[in-house]
């Protein structure tokens, strides 16, 4: 059977053979399920887990950046003053990450950047051609480096420009980087930043919608390189209008048609469609147009001209007539992405006709209304596209800056030197613009008036999975506060593309999503060749067709990236031929071809931001991937790309999936099946992939685990001990889960685990286990269960001041003790002779770890700034602040400087903690609980084999949560321990063998003499008698979450007060008081316990004694010298009374007085 060159379904011989072969087992091709799982590791090997980010950045750096500089508006800078002057960009290069230091260019690694707080960036250089004096000069590249450096581009890790690409694991490790780190983020000023994937409605597509009143409306968001605009079509009083920002009012659609040169009503109606009902619906609109007296193009334009918004800029000279202005708007703003050449609006008219037809269809049949939340109508904007937007904006700004400079130079009457533009280009603007945007997350693109906040986030390094999950996160443009269910709901079309489990709870629920394991996000593809191809394949050009021919029922319209190309009379042949070309690699693998019989359209898409995923192609339900292919893959003769190239596997986007029938398993395929899933568990993302047997759990539990897995402590990366993170949580003895899944192996969670396999007994014990609390075995804790290391960073810059003095670090000054011996003060005990805390020293709260001194005078010039006397310095030591009573250890000290020669010291403190009561733990099934009590091992129940659980979980956790997966995990873990092999629990894995069945697990248990149901006969450790019921006991992977009592515990008797109000401070960090809130106050009032109320609210808070003049009612003061109270208003001390009131009250009086309001106290004898 020929597969590679001809689509078998098109091959008549093949079809004939199979038609006759039906029912005859011998002739029909053998259907045997092939284990396609191996395709997955192969896919991830080629694509990686965060390939979407890296691909998009690579596309930007390699292609798009060139397109930007060659764009018409950017390529050439001319001068208004000297018409002969020009600067032309010839080419642009983004180099390798490097840093210029002391006039030496050095290559830098990401790890250096993290440690030194610098940006991992590469120089952007350009080749330019420009005039200097009378000659034309060109500065060209040398060895891939352009002639002029125009800025520095932050480089995405593991992108094509990164130093880590193409390196082996060992080489990557040598650079101080973790080989398992996925990359896909930036290092800006030492912090790792990820640009979140942004989800938005697709551009340049017609979306039919209903507005709030239920009327049909259409909207098109046009986006070209130069312009972004939104055009709305809406129905008002049965008439159709166009709404544009630049028009003050909604304008009738027929007027717009006429303004675009389509004066005949008949032609308009014909363009919309030949269905007589269309004409009926359009009649009111047509009537309105004639009632407005608009019949000709000119009249229409004049009418539109009156509706144009008057520009506020009054100083601009009115050069254009109203008619011209209206025509310009129709050309440039109205459906801006539809090209208009020399005021030929033909194409735009057809486009409007299609929109109208779709609207009319939707009016007659509501099923024609588009779903905005449908994933096929969404586009994901990735790092590359976002940076491209920003870069173009900054590049334009730089060009206008150069132009301004050139103009001002040439405007000068006599110049002494020849002006050389290459010497005045300043790279700061681009570098800083990019760096600032990525580090702050504020994306400001002036030309599109785009202002987005929170585009980037600091990569969460709480655990390996947290970082990985961060790379696949998608943030939505919807407001989080809005209470809409549509965009938050699970969409059927997100099957296989977006993870159905991984979304946060609360306000961002359903808006923040995550990519599934196999999802790929496309990048833009060259349009020209594809359009040519379409024409070659028989697409009839629109300009040659009349409305009647366009709307003929025989032909399908071909729409390419939202543009109408023409019509085709054999749409299925056309689509199949294009697909065939794609499968044999003649056109890009991510081009999607989708026929929509309902709209009678063939959609061809090659734009960026579509989500797609690979599927195995099947011919009449028989998979093209055979056993021998998989064997070749296993033996390394074949890669995933070979499968793609040979047409065994292809990428489908959400729209094209509608033209397919996808079977979950090969065995379920019928003769109509066109594709077969590679593995069903790939519908989940990385976070949900960690859950064993998620398909046995109640769905919200999986969602909870997705959120909690990111808080679990464990290993972060192989280089975790070389990092200087502000906060780092590590587990002392992390383990790999006994019950694994295929996803765990694929994302390498088994190498960087975040949890421990604990033997869990499900029983009630001691009463300290209510509300999901767990009882822990003290001996297990003694032996290292749940032990964790918390590392905190403190850094101190050694500042340089304007008068060339600088901070200094000195050895601790000795002080004399009682006996007159000189010794190091207590607080400075841990300092080394260099004045910095010694590594390995135990540090207590209040200890000095950097003995820094700052010059007292930092402003006035000092004669010899490097040798000012000791007396000119004041001590500014850095002291350790931590939980009282706990001591940490100085783990690491780093002395370094950043790219601005700013010297700094980073100190890492380490604190090892064993679990205590109140620490939070969780299994992998969204079942979190705090440690309720810690019990001695001898009190714990034990089994006949002497097994004693590590922790006890209350069975009440199961009935309402319905986490059956946890129970199966326990069984599987137990069987795994007994048989000495890891058991699997991949999602939906039972049919394909990627999850062990309960039957098989039970058989293993019985074989080893355990009960099939996992319940053991236990003896009470307290009485010694057997327990009356059998206890469900076995290992479950438990995660220790970052929430620990030590970081939250807080109480106060007395302590600091706020200066202004004299009330106790608020919050744990300020050692604040515990608030007696409004509701608590209400309780006290209801109880009538007035003295308690007084004590809580005043005496213990901000009691203050004031002198009140009983005569004038104002506050007086007490003179301590004279021991007399005075009223400063009455100027005597006769009628003074002393009373207590809250200081806040006194403050209020005084503030009122400052506003010319006199509060008077009227006192009565008590």
């Amino acid at each position, binding site marked *: 059977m020929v597969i590679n060159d001809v689509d078998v379904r098109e091959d008549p011989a093949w079809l004939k053979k199979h038609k006759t072969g039906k029912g005859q087992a011998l002739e029909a091709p053998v259907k045997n399920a092939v284990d396609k799982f191996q395709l997955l590791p192969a896919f991830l090997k080629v694509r990686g887990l965060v390939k979407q980010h890296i691909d998009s950045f690579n596309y930007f750096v390699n292609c798009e950046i060139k397109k930007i500089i060659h764009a018409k508006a950017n390529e050439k800078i001319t001068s208004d003053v000297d018409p002969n002057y020009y600067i032309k960009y010839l080419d642009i290069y983004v180099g390798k990450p490097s840093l210029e230091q002391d006039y030496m260019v050095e290559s830098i690694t990401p790890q250096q950047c993290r440690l030194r707080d610098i940006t991992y960036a590469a120089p952007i250089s350009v080749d330019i051609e420009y005039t200097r004096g009378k000659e034309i000069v060109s500065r060209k590249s040398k060895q891939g480096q352009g002639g002029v450096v125009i800025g520095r581009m932050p480089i995405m890790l593991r992108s094509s420009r990164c130093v880590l690409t193409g390196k082996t694991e060992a080489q990557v490790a040598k650079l101080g980087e973790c080989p398992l780190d996925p990359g896909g983020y930036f290092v800006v000023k030492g912090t790792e930043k990820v640009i979140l994937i942004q989800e938005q409605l697709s551009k340049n597509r017609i979306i039919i919608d209903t507005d709030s009143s239920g009327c049909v409306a259409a909207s098109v968001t046009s986006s070209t390189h130069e312009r972004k605009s939104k055009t709305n079509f809406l129905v008002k009083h049965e008439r159709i209008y166009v709404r544009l920002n630049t028009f003050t009012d909604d304008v009738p659609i027929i007027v717009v048609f006429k303004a675009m040169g389509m004066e005949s009503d008949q032609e308009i109606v014909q363009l919309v469609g030949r269905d007589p009902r269309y004409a009926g619906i359009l009649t009111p609109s047509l009537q309105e147009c004639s009632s407005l007296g608009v019949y000709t193009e000119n009249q229409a334009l004049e009418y539109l001209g009156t509706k144009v918004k008057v520009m506020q800029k009054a100083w601009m000279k009115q050069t254009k007539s109203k008619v011209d202005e209206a025509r310009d708007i129709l050309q440039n703003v109205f459906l801006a992405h539809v090209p208009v050449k020399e005021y030929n609006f033909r194409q735009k008219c057809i486009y409007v006709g299609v929109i109208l037809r779709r609207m009319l269809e939707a009016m007659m049949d509501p099923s024609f209304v588009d779903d905005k939340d449908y994933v096929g109508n969404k586009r994901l904007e990735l790092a590359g596209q976002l940076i491209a937007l920003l870069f173009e904006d900054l590049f334009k700004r730089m060009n206008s800056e150069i132009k301004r400079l050139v103009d001002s130079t040439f405007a000068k009457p006599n110049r002494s030197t020849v002006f050389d533009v290459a010497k005045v280009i300043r790279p700061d603007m681009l570098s800083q613009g990019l760096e600032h945007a990525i580090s702050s997350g504020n994306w400001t693109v002036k030309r599109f008036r785009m202002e987005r906040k929170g585009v980037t986030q600091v990569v969460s390094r709480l655990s390996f999975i947290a970082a990985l999950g961060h790379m696949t996160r998608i943030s939505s443009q919807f407001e989080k506060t809005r209470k809409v269910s549509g965009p938050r709901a699970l969409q059927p079309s997100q099957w296989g593309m977006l993870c159905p489990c991984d979304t946060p709870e609360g306000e961002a629920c359903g808006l923040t999503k995550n990519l599934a394991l196999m999802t790929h996000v496309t990048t833009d593809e060259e349009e020209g060749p594809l359009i040519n191809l379409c024409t070659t394949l028989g697409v009839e050009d629109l300009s040659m067709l009349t409305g009647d021919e366009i709307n003929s029922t025989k032909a399908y319209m071909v729409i390419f990236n939202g543009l109408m190309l023409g019509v085709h009379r054999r749409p299925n042949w056309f689509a199949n031929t294009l697909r065939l070309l794609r499968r044999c690699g003649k056109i890009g693998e991510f081009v999607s071809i989708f026929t929509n019989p309902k709209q009678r359209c063939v959609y061809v898409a090659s734009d960026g931001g579509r989500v797609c995923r690979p599927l195995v192609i099947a011919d009449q339900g028989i998979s093209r991937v055979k056993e021998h292919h998989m064997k070749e893959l296993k033996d390394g003769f074949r890669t995933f790309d070979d499968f793609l190239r040979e047409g065994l596997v292809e990428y489908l986007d959400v729209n094209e999936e509608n033209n397919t029938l996808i079977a979950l398993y090969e065995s379920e395929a019928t003769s109509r099946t066109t594709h077969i899933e590679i593995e069903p568990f790939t519908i989940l993302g990385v976070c949900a992939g960690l859950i064993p047997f998620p398909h046995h759990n109640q769905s919200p539990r999986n969602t909870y685990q997705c959120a909690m897995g990111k808080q679990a402590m464990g290993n972060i990366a192989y280089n975790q*001990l070389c990092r200087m993170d502000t906060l780092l949580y590590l587990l*002392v003895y992390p383990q790999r889960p006994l019950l694994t899944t295929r996803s765990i192996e694929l994302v390498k969670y088994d190498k960087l685990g975040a949890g421990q396999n604990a033997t869990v007994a499900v029983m009630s014990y001691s009463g300290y286990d209510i509300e999901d609390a767990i009882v822990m075995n*003290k*001996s297990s804790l*003694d*032996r*290292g269960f749940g*032990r964790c*290391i918390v590392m905190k960073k403190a850094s101190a810059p050694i500042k340089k001041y304007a008068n060339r003095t600088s901070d200094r670090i000195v050895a601790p000054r000795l002080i004399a003790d009682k006996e007159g011996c000189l010794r190091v003060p207590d607080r400075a005990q841990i300092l080394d002779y260099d004045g910095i805390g010694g590594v*390995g020293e135990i540090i207590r709260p209040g200890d000095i770890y950097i003995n820094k001194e700052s010059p007292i005078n930092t402003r006035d010039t000092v004669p010899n700034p490097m040798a000012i006397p000791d007396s000119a310095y004041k001590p500014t030591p850095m002291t350790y602040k931590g939980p009282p009573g706990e001591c940490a*250890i100085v*783990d690491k000290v780093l002395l370094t400087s950043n790219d601005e020669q700013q010297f700094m010291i980073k100190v890492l403190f*380490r604190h*090892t903690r064993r679990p205590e009561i109140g620490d939070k733990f969780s299994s992998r099934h969204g079942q979190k609980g705090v440690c309720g009590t810690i019990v*001695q*091992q*001898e009190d714990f129940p*034990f*089994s*006949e*084999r*002497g097994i*004693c659980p590590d922790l006890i979980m209350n069975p009440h956790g199961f009935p309402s949560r319905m986490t059956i997966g946890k129970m199966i995990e326990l069984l599987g873990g137990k069987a795994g321990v007994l048989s000495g092999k890891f058991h699997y629990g991949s999602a939906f894995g039972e049919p394909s063998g990627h999850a062990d069945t309960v039957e098989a697990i039970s058989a293993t*248990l*019985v*074989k*080893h*003499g*355990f*009960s*099939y149901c996992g319940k*053991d*006969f236990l*003896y009470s*450790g*307290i*009485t*010694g*008698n*057997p*327990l*009356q*019921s*059998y206890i469900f006991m076995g290992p479950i992977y438990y995660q220790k979450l970052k929430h620990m009592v030590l970081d939250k515990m807080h109480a106060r008797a007395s302590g600091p007060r706020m200066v202004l109000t004299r009330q106790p401070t608020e919050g744990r960090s300020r050692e604040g008081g515990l608030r007696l809130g409004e509701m608590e106050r209400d309780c006290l009032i209801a109880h009538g316990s007035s003295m308690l109320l007084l004590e809580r609210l005043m005496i213990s808070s901000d009691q203050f004694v004031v002198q009140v003049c009983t005569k004038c009612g104002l506050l007086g003061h007490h003179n301590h010298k004279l021991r007399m109270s005075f009223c400063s208003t009455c100027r005597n001390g006769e009628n003074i009374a002393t009373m207590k009131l809250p200081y806040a009250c006194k403050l209020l009086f005084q503030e009122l007085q400052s506003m010319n309001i006199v509060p008077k106290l009227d006192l009565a004898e008590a």
Partner: protein
Amino acid sequence: MAPTSALDMPDMPSGKLPPHLELQRTRVICAADAAAHTESIQYSGAYALSRIDNSLRLREFCDNFRVEVFSLNEDDIEFDMIGIDAAIANAFRRILIAEVPTMAIEKVFVANNTSVIQEEVLAHRLGLVPLKVDPRLFEYKSESDLANEKNTIVLKLDVVCSRQDGRIKNATVKSEQLQWLPNGSEYQIEKTSKTYTSFSCSQETLPALKDNPIASRYPDIILAKLRPGQCIELEAHAVKGMGKTHAKWSPVATARYRMLPEVALLENIRDSLAEELVEKCPVNVFDIEDLSRGRKKAVVARPRDCTLCRECVLGDGWDKRVQIRRVKEHFIFSVESTGALPPDVLFLESVKILEEKCQRLLVELS
């Protein structure tokens, strides 16, 4: 056990418990779903209506109490303790785990550590290393006590990892590299001439320690991993302590007991059913006995092997044919020593501790 009709019961108390009550008193019935009659009946008048005195008599206890050692080797012991209440058996177990003292590393003085392992983690690992030393030779050391030869054992670890002829030496630090310092600490307290211990004599002079020097019980416990150029130099001080303070002082890996399994065939199980029963049991408790004329009968051959998987009582009607029980006052006690003392000695120690406790109680009471 077949239910007995009230009419079939003897009219008069015969001085003996009726069989169903006797079964309840002496056996735990392990049904497929739950265990029944797990409690031991303590009250002396529990069977007063049957005219039976249930009080515990020392004479009877002395007559009936038996200890039979099943197996014994260097580390493990399994013995049967017959005729004793669960509370007492459990007391021994609890004392073994928590109250029999051993020596374990408590303080670690790190002179240098350039390895990746953090000092406190290394110290924790050192603490868990079982030491081969008789704790009875030592005294408890209280916070205020000075470290002397009677209460402290000093061990030294000094490892440097290096590359020697292409091979990496000392890549893994193992417990055998812990060196005993019989003369006490070698480290001096800063600015004094004293060391951290004040031994009056070498511990080697103690007769019990002369021939078997103190070391880790197992030579191959991995303490740390090093790369060339890294080193660990430390001194570890071991003191006497009890398992209830920290698990490292527990002398046993575990001490546990189980009640003697008893499998009763409630009816004769023959032929195919017999084969099915033998097939059912994963630990081969049952055997087939050939009867005449090719008929077969199931017999309980190795009840002691029963692990209570309850396979034999699962399935249609099987709970009527087989009953699994546990004999209440028959404990199969097993102790796994960590190596400080032989398991038999450990058990005797626990008996002594219980005795001591009883003495103390008596003293308090009188």
